């Protein structure tokens, strides 16, 4: 009986239907960066666990974390975290009922895209 009542509801959001535009791109990037960040967290936590365990384990994990692969994951994660950070602040601004007209939303989208790259470069320079 439960099966008979099931309605085929559309799944959101409909990425393949709409023409791409800045607010849409920056919205879906928020979701992608947020979930992709788990890769950087996994590598960082594994590296921390190895440091806590033994010299040999740390040597292995540290070799991976500081290899080209580790650089790729951590640099990508750094951009992802800054992008997600700015987009999250934008969400808090939206939640306050502000910045929702299209010109402002597009400007905020560009601010997230450009700002995340700038903050990534600044962070890399600071921690080197």
């Amino acid at each position, binding site marked *: 009986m439960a099966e008979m009542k099931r309605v085929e509801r559309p*799944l*959101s*959001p409909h990425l393949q239907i709409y023409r791409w535009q800045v607010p849409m791109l920056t919205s879906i990037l928020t*979701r992608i960066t*947020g*979930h992709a*960040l*788990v890769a950087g*967290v*996994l590598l*960082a*936590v*594994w*590296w*921390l*666990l190895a*440091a*806590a*365990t033994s*010299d040999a384990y*740390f040597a292995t994990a*540290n070799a991976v*974390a*500081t290899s080209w692969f580790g650089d790729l994951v*951590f640099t990508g994660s*750094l951009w992802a*975290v800054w992008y997600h*950070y700015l987009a*999250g*602040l934008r*969400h*808090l601004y939206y*939640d306050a009922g502000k910045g929702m007209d299209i010109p402002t939303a597009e400007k905020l989208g560009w601010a997230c895209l450009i700002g995340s790259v700038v903050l990534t470069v600044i*962070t*890399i320079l*600071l*921690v080197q």
Partner: protein
Amino acid sequence: MRYLTARKRAEGKGAAHTGTRHHWSMTLSAVGLAFMVPAWLFVFGRTLGQGREAVLETFSHPFPAILTALVLVIGMRHFAMGATTMIEDYLRGTSKKLAIIFAVSLAWMVGAVGIFALLKIAL
């Protein structure tokens, strides 16, 4: 004059009745992370690439250890709730349930491993 706040009026609405709480939880963790993440990026970025002795030294101090623990626990909670929302958007039925169980389990697992490592280093 309305004595109820906007949040109070929204609570319990919607199909699942929990959307308002979910949204408020995400707001809280987002604001908390907004304050902590820049400092943590600096601590972690400075420590990554150093030898094991230096790494142990850094994370045996209260500020880096507690900051890392908070970022991990709140970050993974934020991840689990965000992942649940995404899965609810794209999946249905058993696959939805399995994906949510996987995401929430992964979040707790990562948090637990990180806390274990921090305790082992700091204590």
